[in-house]
């Protein structure tokens, strides 16, 4: 049984749905830690008071917000908690939207929501979300921080995503990208055909993290004392003849 990370109640109108939340994702990246190159000893991160030049135990540390250069306002734990609000146990679904309208940039972290106690009311919310193909928007407090969330029906359970706020998202216009000449009809046509030739149904299983295995293999070879060959890849050519590159790509993909 996976461990739940949060217990609370989803409400819509006067209906209360008790739930448990679980992490939906886990990183499989190979982990490294810092060591001193000279002797291979582990590096420790120490908190030092530069004035006294000594290590400070955690209990002597407070949190300060810098209001101007070198001036801090100290907030205690309860005061930071005050900002989290009073809804630590409730996710009220205030609006329902078509989840397909939410741009991928807004999605942050994903959790699964399972039932807790009253399974029938959970089933009702699940079925109603499924039927309407809608997702409920609400707010969720976790570790003294409030998040915007969207709750939708997944394949078997409810899925909760935390969302970025609109002002946290950078827009394409902010980038001030220099515009090139308009592509020619021929270029557009060839690029479109190239896209079509590579079109597939999305199948997540088709993509494996091969680098992860390669890194583990590298570690094993190093552990055996093998010499690692640092042969670098050649840079790809950046030709200026776009039409020729497209044409060559198309004849290649057809063969």
């Amino acid at each position: 049984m996976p461990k739940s990370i949060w217990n609370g109640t989803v409400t819509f109108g006067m209906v209360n749905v008790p739930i448990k939340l679980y992490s939906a994702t886990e990183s499989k990246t190979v982990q490294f830690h810092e060591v001193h190159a000279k002797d291979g000893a582990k590096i420790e991160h120490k908190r030092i008071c530069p004035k006294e030049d000594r290590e400070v135990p955690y209990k002597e540390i407070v949190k300060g917000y810098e209001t101007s250069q070198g001036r801090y306002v100290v907030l205690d734990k309860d005061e930071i908690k005050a900002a989290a609000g009073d809804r630590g146990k409730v996710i009220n679904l205030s609006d329902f939207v078509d989840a397909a309208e939410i741009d991928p940039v807004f999605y942050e972290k994903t959790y699964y929501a399972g039932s807790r106690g009253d399974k029938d009311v959970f089933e009702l919310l699940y079925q109603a979300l499924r039927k309407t193909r809608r997702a409920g928007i609400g707010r969720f407090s976790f570790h003294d921080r409030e998040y915007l969330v969207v709750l939708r029906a997944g394949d078997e359970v409810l899925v909760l995503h935390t969302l970025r706020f609109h002002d946290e998202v950078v827009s394409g216009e902010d980038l001030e990208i220099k515009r090139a000449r308009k592509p020619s009809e021929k270029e557009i046509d060839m690029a479109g055909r190239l896209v079509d030739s590579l079109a597939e149904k999305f199948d997540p299983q088709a993509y494996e993290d091969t680098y992860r295995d390669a890194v583990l293999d590298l570690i094993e070879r190093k552990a055996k004392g093998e010499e690692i060959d640092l042969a670098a890849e050649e840079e790809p050519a950046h030709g200026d003849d776009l039409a020729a590159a497209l044409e060559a790509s198309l004849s290649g993909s057809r063969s």
Partner: protein
Amino acid sequence: VARALWSGSLSFGLVNVPVQLVSASRDLDYHFHQLHEKDKVPIEQRRVCSKENEEVAWEEVAHSHELDGKQVVVTDEELASVQPRKTRTIDVEAFVDLDEVDPIYFDHPYFLIPAGDSEGTLGAYRLLVETMADQGRVALGRFVLRTKESLVAVRSREGALALTTMLFHDEVRPTNDIEGGGKKPSKKQIDTAVAIIEGLSTGWDPGRYQDCYRERLKRVIDAKSKRKTIEVPKPEKEPKPVPDLMDALERTLEQLRDGGESDAEGRETNSGRRGSRSGGASRSGGKTKSRS
């Protein structure tokens, strides 16, 4: 201009576009410093060698992985040499419909911006932006950022190429051990719940939702800097399961119909404040919502 986190090529057939990766999210949170309580001096984090008990400069730090109780040190060059092409190139492997990708896979949003302003680079970049904008498709590829490989989706967004890193399928947990629902609801229950959801439906408008936490934290900081006392709100009690589900559904629907849409309990308004919990309306700044 945003800081480049990676430079390389986006490779599509035999077309190579030199690009730089920049983040598409900005951090607006209020950050705190750790201070020594006694003298309010900011704490410094120092890297110390556990053997010598001396501070270690960043140049002397190596990265190590534990294998069968043994520390194996690996350099950045060795990590890059493992799959050199992937650390420099995003090879487009396939195009898929964006709608088919479950949002559970999305990790972090970035933009790819053209590196340099040669006619060839800008032309190829624009061609990709326009081709994908027309087709509603996303390009899938893989690349290595720092020491991590990611599946990525590249698509056209607001005149630029947006890149979203994605999780691999084995990084998404199975759901089979999670407690699901119970018995099938009655038709009447479903119909009423559906009517409530439809009554509360609106178009997705991210601008409607403000980060209230950030705003409240700002108020707390301001109050504290003026030496005012900060009241910590009592946590709200978790609502109890309703004794009669059908009754709760019907009363909710009734209230939605009587009160009109802005009277719905706890709806978000433009000011980002939620309505009062007592079924009261928070009409201020309520935006007209489209019903679908």
